[in-house]
């Protein structure tokens, strides 16, 4: 609370108190305040911004590590569309929110205090890699994988995972991971563009069918299409189609005349 008051730019998030209360219990108010001061302006500064966008972006850093170590697992997880939501509470609370064992929590906190800022991402990657066999047993869909990963097992071999995490950290420099994230994002964007294109074509087809069969269906499409995003897409698309039509018409006309 005192830290939040000291830095008006930093925003409290649900989970921040999990971190604060752990230090309060272990070290008392004064030391906890000093620790939270440093953590809030360094380790958690991204999480305390106005939006969670930076944090969500940061969480993507786990994927290259998983991909380098176990591409099959990476592909399976990507295909499921699980995203990084399961790991959000881990990252925001240094696992304090998600682990029941107080002993495990304070051990992790010790480790994170003595490690580089982004170490929690590597512990996350280590946990995902460690649970690969369990992941493969699930259906490849978002709900099943999210459900499995978001619940941390009671008997995680913490020491072993921390060793792996340190090892991963040394093996893959942050700059390299960043580059890889950018590459994956580009790939993802291209895939999404393709999806949108085919979706648009499907809609066009459907709209055409609807138009010829009945009017009421079309009238129901309109409110649905009027979300801001689709509005822009549709407008841009119709302008484009208009231009094309005009262009071809003039082409054919002139061809017809000559």
């Amino acid at each position: 609370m005192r830290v939040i008051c000291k830095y008006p730019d930093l925003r409290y998030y649900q989970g921040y108190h999990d971190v604060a209360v752990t230090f309060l219990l272990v070290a008392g108010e004064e030391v906890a305040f000093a620790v939270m001061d440093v953590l809030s302006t360094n380790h958690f500064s991204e999480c305390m911004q106005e939006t969670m966008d930076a944090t969500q972006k940061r969480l993507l850093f786990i994927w290259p590590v998983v991909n380098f170590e176990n591409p099959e697992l990476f592909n399976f997880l990507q295909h499921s569309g699980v995203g990084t939501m399961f790991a959000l509470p881990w990252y925001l609370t240094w696992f304090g929110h998600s682990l029941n064992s107080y002993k495990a929590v304070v051990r992790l906190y010790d480790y994170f205090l003595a490690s580089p800022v982004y170490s929690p991402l590597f512990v996350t990657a280590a946990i995902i890699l460690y649970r690969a066999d369990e992941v493969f047993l699930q259906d490849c869909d978002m709900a099943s994988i999210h459900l499995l990963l978001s619940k941390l097992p009671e008997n995680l071999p913490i020491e072993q995972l921390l060793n792996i995490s340190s090892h991963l950290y040394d093996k893959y420099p942050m700059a390299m991971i960043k580059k890889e994230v950018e590459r994956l994002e580009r790939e993802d964007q291209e895939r999404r563009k393709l999806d949108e294109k085919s979706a648009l074509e499907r809609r066009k087809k459907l709209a055409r069918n609807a138009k010829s069969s009945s009017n009421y269906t079309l009238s129901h499409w309109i409110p649905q299409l009027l979300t801001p995003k689709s509005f822009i897409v549709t407008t841009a698309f119709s302008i484009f189609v208009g231009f094309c039509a005009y262009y071809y018409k003039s082409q054919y006309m002139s061809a017809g005349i000559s």
Partner: protein
Amino acid sequence: MEDYKFLFKIVLVGNAGVGKTCLVRRFTQGLFPPGQGATIGVDFMIKTVEVDGDKIKLQIWDTAGQERFRSITQSYYRSAHALILVYDISCQPTFDCLPDWLREIQEYANCKVLKILVGNKTDRDDREIPTQIGEEFAKQHDMYFLETSAKEAENVERLFYEIAAELIDQARRKDGTSAVNKNSMDAIGLGSLGTKASQNSCCSGFNSNSNQCTS
């Protein structure tokens, strides 16, 4: 592989502290955790219920109420079959925010999503929002309405069972029309195929649903 007839996705939204997580835990685990911590991001539970002899799997997504998680939780609205909008009957500001929530829902959710307004914490004696006000609001905005108490387990089962029954009804009605419109085949009614409901099948439900809106 678990066998079930239908799979429905239910998403809970509403301000922080109104009792979304407690409602879910009461329903799925039968308990009321007094010191329930705040939800971070999105939590997820599954419960299989039986309605008229059919096994129905409910996927319940419990979202964080805090504003800063909004951009994250919005992505979960889209594939929902039902949205439960929760407020706290003893806390006026949670009711005052409902129009904002409805705007969110309108922008990000399926046009035919089943909307339920829930006034939670009826066990409290410092009520600020009379039942009638909640009821009227729900009526105005084409929503079902129910008051619940996660603490006393009041109306919690009923809430989820009625949602299940209504969604089954919708799915059956659609099955009827799908003989005519083949596109809508695997929208909500995944039928006995039911092993998993991919996001795709829900998205296809989005389109076919809308055809049905008018009929």
